């Protein structure tokens, strides 16, 4: 997928002025956030589960080589194949080779963020394969030729009316106007595809080292139809999605749905272990897992290792005020919101993604809901630090920070400047004590007034009180 993160500001401004998008995003706030809060309040064990989930992820990362080898062995023992992909191109080539070998024509897909990350669909379509996304949200955005705007609800930015239009254009009339009719129409169209599919590609929420199983967690059942009815099942997953044992799976199942969609459980959790066995009358004849590194191993052992704990639940973006205002597309790549603002610079480079770590108010809501306790604000601050060190931040900002630092390191000068500024701003604030315009901060004062200081600095007030 092309990276349009350099245009974050421009896209954010367009998004803010889009009433349809604002209407759609408003729904998400209500739904996910409230339902999660209710369930968490009803579960006294939740905080302990979060601690344990964090610890298991850290344990896996510290022993990742071991668990990956165990997983590889277990998949092979179950009759499946594991493929290792260092980067996106290798991942695409592995899958293209499989499709070519089995002479595939139709390829169905369950939702897989890794397949978005490696830009799989474009590569498959370029070879002439018919690629059908089967998750309803993914199907909608495939028809709209758009990238996902949310990792759990990819079409969250679309209203019902927009979906009606897309379906009418793709399937012919009569136009459906209720959610029930739209879902039924997609169900009927996609049924044919599942049965026709030669290859079914899904993601993997968890890879179990003990058993060699890959796990998908869905509500629709599309992933299951995809992987059951196609002749060949290919799982695409990041190398960090390993869990050691089934006991660890229970732990993550207890936090995933609650954090993601505010459900006690999603409707379907499926463990796939190898291909069709003797006597089986259905199921895929081949089972492949593509383990994708694509920059993950380089995050190990460094300042961003914590990010590899991410279980892709989407809670951080559901609770992020910036995501809630601009939506997922402004972020310009596959992963939006707080987790995307950390991952995108690490995956595609600091240069093209300057705005992402800076489009954060450091309010900390993401960290407070993250089920594996990733210190997202800290990681975003570290990215800003690295941007500054590498000279990527704008010259004006760098000079301003230089001046601030010079003053801040000299307490006498700092206090003098503070006194001067407090008095000047009080004067500018006028009788009602509000600033309507500020130099260099026009964007802030365009939408609200800044309360002016009252004329004295904190230190001055402190000294007055002490005497």
């Amino acid at each position, binding site marked *: 997928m092309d990276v349009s993160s350099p245009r974050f500001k421009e896209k954010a401004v367009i998004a803010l002025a889009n009433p349809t998008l604002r209407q759609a995003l408003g729904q*998400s706030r209500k*739904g996910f956030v409230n339902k999660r809060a209710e369930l968490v309040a009803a*579960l006294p064990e939740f905080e302990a589960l979060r601690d*344990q989930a964090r610890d*298991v992820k850290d344990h896996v990362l*510290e022993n990742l*080589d*071991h668990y*990956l*080898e*165990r997983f590889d062995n277990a998949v092979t023992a179950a009759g499946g194949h594991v493929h*290792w992909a*260092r980067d996106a191109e*290798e991942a695409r080539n*592995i899958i293209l080779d499989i499709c070519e070998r089995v002479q595939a024509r139709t390829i169905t897909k369950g939702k897989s963020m890794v397949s978005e990350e490696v830009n799989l669909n474009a590569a498959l379509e370029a070879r002439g394969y018919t690629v059908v996304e089967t998750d*309803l949200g993914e199907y*909608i955005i495939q028809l709209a030729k758009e990238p996902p705007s949310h990792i759990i*609800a*990819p*079409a969250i930015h679309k*209203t*019902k009316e927009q979906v009606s239009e897309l379906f009418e254009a793709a399937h012919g009339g009569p136009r459906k106007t209720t*959610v029930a009719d739209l*879902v039924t129409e997609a*169900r009927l169209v996609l049924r044919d595809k599942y*049965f026709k599919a030669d290859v079914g590609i899904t993601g993997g929420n968890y890879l179990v080292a003990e*058993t060699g*199983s890959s796990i998908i967690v869905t509500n*629709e059942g*599309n992933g*299951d*139809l995809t992987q*059951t009815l196609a002749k060949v099942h290919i799982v695409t997953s990041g190398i960090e999605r390993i869990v*050691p*044992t*089934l*006991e*660890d*799976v*229970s732990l993550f*199942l207890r936090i995933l749905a609650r954090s993601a969609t505010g*459900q*006690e459980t999603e*409707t*379907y*959790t*499926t*463990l796939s*272990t190898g*291909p*069709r*066995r003797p*006597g*089986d*009358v*259905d199921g895929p004849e081949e089972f492949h897992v593509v383990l994708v*590194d694509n920059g993950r*191993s380089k995050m190990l*052992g*460094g300042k961003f290792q914590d990010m590899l704990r991410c279980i892709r639940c989407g809670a951080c973006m559901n609770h992020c005020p910036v995501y809630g205002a601009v939506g997922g597309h402004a972020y310009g790549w596959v992963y939006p919101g707080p987790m995307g603002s950390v991952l995108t610079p690490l995956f595609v480079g600091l240069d093209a993604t300057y705005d992402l770590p800076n489009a954060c108010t450091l309010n900390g809501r993401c960290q407070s809901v993250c089920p594996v306790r990733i210190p997202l604000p800290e990681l975003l601050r570290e990215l800003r630090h690295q941007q500054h060190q590498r000279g990527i931040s704008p010259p004006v900002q760098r000079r301003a920070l230089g001046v601030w630092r010079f003053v801040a390191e000299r307490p006498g000068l700092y206090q003098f400047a503070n006194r001067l500024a407090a008095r000047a701003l009080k004067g500018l604030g006028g009788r009602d004590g509000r600033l309507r315009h500020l130099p260099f901060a026009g964007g802030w004062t365009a939408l609200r007034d800044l309360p002016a200081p009252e004329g004295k600095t904190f230190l001055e007030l402190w000294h007055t009180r002490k005497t």
Partner: protein
Amino acid sequence: MPESRSAILQQIRAALGRGPLSDSAAAALDARRPAHTRIAVDDDDLVARFVSRFESRSGTVARVSGVDAIPAAVDAYRQAHGLPPRAAVARPLAGLPWPAGFAHHPGPAGQDEQMSVTPCLAGIAEIGSLILASGPDSPTTLNFVPDHHLIVLPAGHIVRHFEDAWTLLRALPGGLPRATNIISGPSRTGDVELTIQLGAHGPRSVHVLLVDDAPAAAA
């Protein structure tokens, strides 16, 4: 590709600042069986908890007095929903006294299959879900293709937690089955304006036949 495998493993070890784990360290990891926090299931009546959780997600439950009463319960469901007298019925249930004129086959389920009847490995009281193990006696298509999925669950097969279900899975003759399906209700989607709609791709209706005093015959 073998060279990618070793390159990735090498990169991981370099990042972690160590070589491959020693045999004893690896053995210790393999022996690890963590005991994570489980959700309190105070209710001694696992059946009641299973039913209330399962019904909270639009699943339906009918109490059946014994194995031999299953065909009548299936027929009652079929008639209530106006379905033809035909279903994919998993092999272990084929020998039940099905009514005359009721056609059944063991699967797989094809595109026009409207109803299926399957066994399950267990019910999980914690969240009110069913766990099904694929195999010749329980083809996976029966769980996802028909509009109506009827699942036979002996009351004694309801376990407390996921962990109890893993114990049953590990004890199966071939180890883990090809597909292990944990099913918690009818298929649903919230992808259009987060409005919950049942019957997205899988069954529109999942109906549990909870068999009161049934021994292992249905399992």
